[in-house]
């Protein structure tokens, strides 16, 4: 595998505390039997875990397989965008029919919403010891499991000029050549908001003026860039862009030097989970060194300080990460969706 060319110079860390611990990405991970705080016998008796996740299914499949092999516990999953996962869980809670044993979504705002409605239970997993304190809920309701950087991706054959900065994509030469993603219920909103708070809403308006094609998921967006349908895309998932390049597609990507929006994914245990012990056991596996290493193998940056970045990607410490104010993202969600609707048009779930 060739090393990813890092187009951004290494910059000072801007976010200090928040990301610091996560970013001290050390050498390799140590394959070790995951420690668990769950009752393994009870978990095995429950025999099944229902995982709600917004993670790419290829990674999910890879993480599940060794778990089932080790414990003989079947893992079923419901996969949707972060907003799908959250809305589904909230609706099930309304009905008193919670189906999820463990929930993972790339939206801290969603966890704040679940916590506010008392849908989560506190769990102090031994597997999260190496996650920085500021990446965990103080009450133990959720813990960050992954960091997704929203990068610039382009087709190496037809992106002229080759973009390196957010500003470059506002170039009129990209008229009708850009792509971005957000599902109809607003999955792309957090990162757009983050970009806007760092560089101004005007930037988004200039993008919108170039008539970017909006795709429903980063997976579809990368296909559109691979096929040359569009030359470049803003704010796609680093892991999806990483995989495309790894597969030898004519694409490349960069973490812009002036800063790259980062999205914290998190994982938590529903209070009304039907298989609480199996859920907790899987939580420990998911957050354990081996589980997180599988996430990294799939292109994800782990929240654990002891898990290396995806092969070929720079350590987070070398990137200038922009973290949104998640509390604001949560409380002002309706306004943010409204504003994005007025800028880009279309359906945002707002």
């Amino acid at each position, binding site marked *: 595998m060739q090393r990813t060319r890092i187009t951004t110079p290494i910059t000072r860390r801007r976010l200090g505390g928040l990301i610091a611990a996560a970013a001290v990405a050390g050498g390799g991970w140590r394959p070790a039997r995951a420690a668990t705080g769950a009752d393994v016998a009870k978990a095995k008796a429950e025999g099944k875990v229902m995982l709600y996740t917004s993670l790419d299914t290829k990674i999910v499949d890879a993480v599940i397989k060794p778990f089932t092999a080790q414990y003989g516990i079947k893992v079923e999953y419901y996969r949707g965008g972060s907003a799908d996962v959250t809305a589904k869980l909230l609706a099930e809670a309304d*009905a008193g029919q919670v189906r999820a044993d463990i929930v993972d979504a790339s939206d801290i705002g969603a966890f704040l919403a679940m916590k506010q409605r008392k849908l989560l239970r506190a769990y102090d997993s031994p597997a999260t010891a190496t996650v920085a304190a500021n990446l965990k809920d103080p009450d133990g309701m959720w813990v960050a499991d992954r960091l997704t950087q929203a990068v610039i991706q382009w087709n190496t054959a037809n992106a002229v000029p080759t973009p390196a900065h957010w500003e470059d994509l506002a170039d009129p030469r990209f008229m009708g050549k850009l792509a971005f993603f957000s599902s109809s219920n607003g999955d792309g909103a957090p990162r757009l908001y983050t970009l806007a708070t760092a560089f101004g809403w005007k930037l988004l308006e200039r993008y919108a003026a170039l008539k970017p094609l909006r795709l429903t998921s980063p997976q579809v967006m990368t296909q559109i860039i691979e096929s040359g*349908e569009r030359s470049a895309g803003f704010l796609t998932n680093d892991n999806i862009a990483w995989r495309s390049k790894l597969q030898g597609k004519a694409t490349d990507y960069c973490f812009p030097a002036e800063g790259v929006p980062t999205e914290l994914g998190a994982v938590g245990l529903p209070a009304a989970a039907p298989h609480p012990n199996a859920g907790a056991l899987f939580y420990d596996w998911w957050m354990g060194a081996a589980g997180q290493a599988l996430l990294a193998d799939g292109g994800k940056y782990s929240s654990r300080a002891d898990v290396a970045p995806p092969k070929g990607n720079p350590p987070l410490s070398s990137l200038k990460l922009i973290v949104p104010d998640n509390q604001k993202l949560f409380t002002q969600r309706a306004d943010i969706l409204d504003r994005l609707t007025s800028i880009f048009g279309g359906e945002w779930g707002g």
Partner: protein
Amino acid sequence: MGRLILTPAAPIARRARLNPQRLVLGLGVAALLLFVAYPLLWLVLGAFGLPRGFGLAGFTRSFTRAANVMPMVNTVVLALGVGVCSLLIAVPLAFATARTDVALRRVLNALAGLAYVLPPYLTAVAYIILLGPNAGHINRALAWAGLPGFNIFTGYGVVFVISLHVFAIPYFLISEALASVDGAMEEAARMLGGSRWAVLRRVTLPLVAPAITGGGLLAGVASMALFGPQAILGLPAQLVYLPTRIFGAISSYPPRYAEASAMSLVLVVLTVAGLAAQRLYLGRRSYVTVGGKGVRPARWALGAWRWPLGLLLLLPLLLAAVAPVAVLALAAVSKVWTQAPTLDNLTLAHFQAALFDNQTAVRGLLNSLKLATAAATVAVLIGVTVAYLDLRTRLRGRTALDFLAILPLGLPGTVLAVALLQAFIHPPLVLYGTIWILLVAYIARAIPLAARSANVALRQVDASLEEAARITGAGWVASIRRILLPLIRPSLLLGWLLVFIPSLSELSSTILLYSSGTETISVAIYRLNDLGQLEVVAALSVVLIGIILVALLLLQALSARSRTSVGTASATG
């Protein structure tokens, strides 16, 4: 309403002591109240903000926010566009197949039927493969020839794909009208010296005009409800219609039930207005000659034009029924759909994924089969009950039953889902999160069709047969079990399949009501399409189309048989 039902009324009803008829009527009404009326009540209450509060915010937000008003406008424009485009396809096709000796008549007719049963969201997916702006097969061919392409991700694209599906409604309506127009009038006009064209324009056309207008209206109404193509083609184009808007408002968090309910009511009003206009138009301008057995007019001999015209008419049908199936089949066996189908590029791996590996797909296929089977069975039972009480008894309350049974016609799938969601997410009856809520949705959607087909079946059997049984001492239940049911069994099976086929691929309601573990094949297709796994989507589509085709063949065999049995039944009656 309960008291109304229990009032003893009809002489037939009075005869039996324990009165099983009233029991059945009671059960029928209870089922319909629960499946249709109760959810509708909650839709209205929800629009006023209940049970969280009470207010008009849902309505004011619906009509004041641009994000809500645009979808309303788009939906009306879509309906108008589809109405017109459907007629452009349907009118020439219906006239040619009914009034001329054009070649390929049976093929054309069969393909129109196939176009209608193909789930429209599959047509949408197929047209991404064919007309995706740059990568689509047709667009690449056009580009190669130096011609401009056609972008399917536009309002025109949505109208085009939906028209390819719903044109079948006006086509069959107009064909039926043409078949029932008394040919003697046309013959007379001909004998009085009218040219072919003059007769067509001045005699035939005015006679079937209500069918044309009504068909166009129905096509437009149907188009408004089709969530699948609106989402798959419209959302990437930033085009929002009411169903996709309602979906967005509910599937984001926190869900906004009041706004979604109020917009659902707007969609209901549009739907009912379209249906009412169609009724009104048909009622005012009834084609006078329709009725008795008329003379079948001689077919217009086209001579040398038989084949050219046949091939020309075949073109839209190829686009509607053949091309989608073909490209999906091709993509399903290609490693990468954008590449040529060379031997290197062939694989069965996507079928492996669709049928064995992908959890959602496997569960979806099983759930859909279970749900469609159960929904068809229950809907047919309810349909027979409604039709029986309507035609064979004079029990009071049966009109209410009739009314309840046609209500779902005015409820697009998305609206029904919003209603069911609010009705069954709270006590006393919580169904959300279970597969039962999907079953209720499918049954409710199927009841009008099931009731109508049971009605047709019952009309074909003369009541005197059952009366004879009753006179000779058989009880009511025995007369139904031993006389009526055997006679109408083929028609019931037909009705069962008519419900089974659309239930198997239902998306509009399902997408809002499914949960983890209760995914359907349509949900699997929709979700995998979101992730860009077009090849697996294609494999799953091929499986779905395969099942539909088998059901369709059964349907055809059955309808051929039931026609003959109808003949004997009416002869004995």
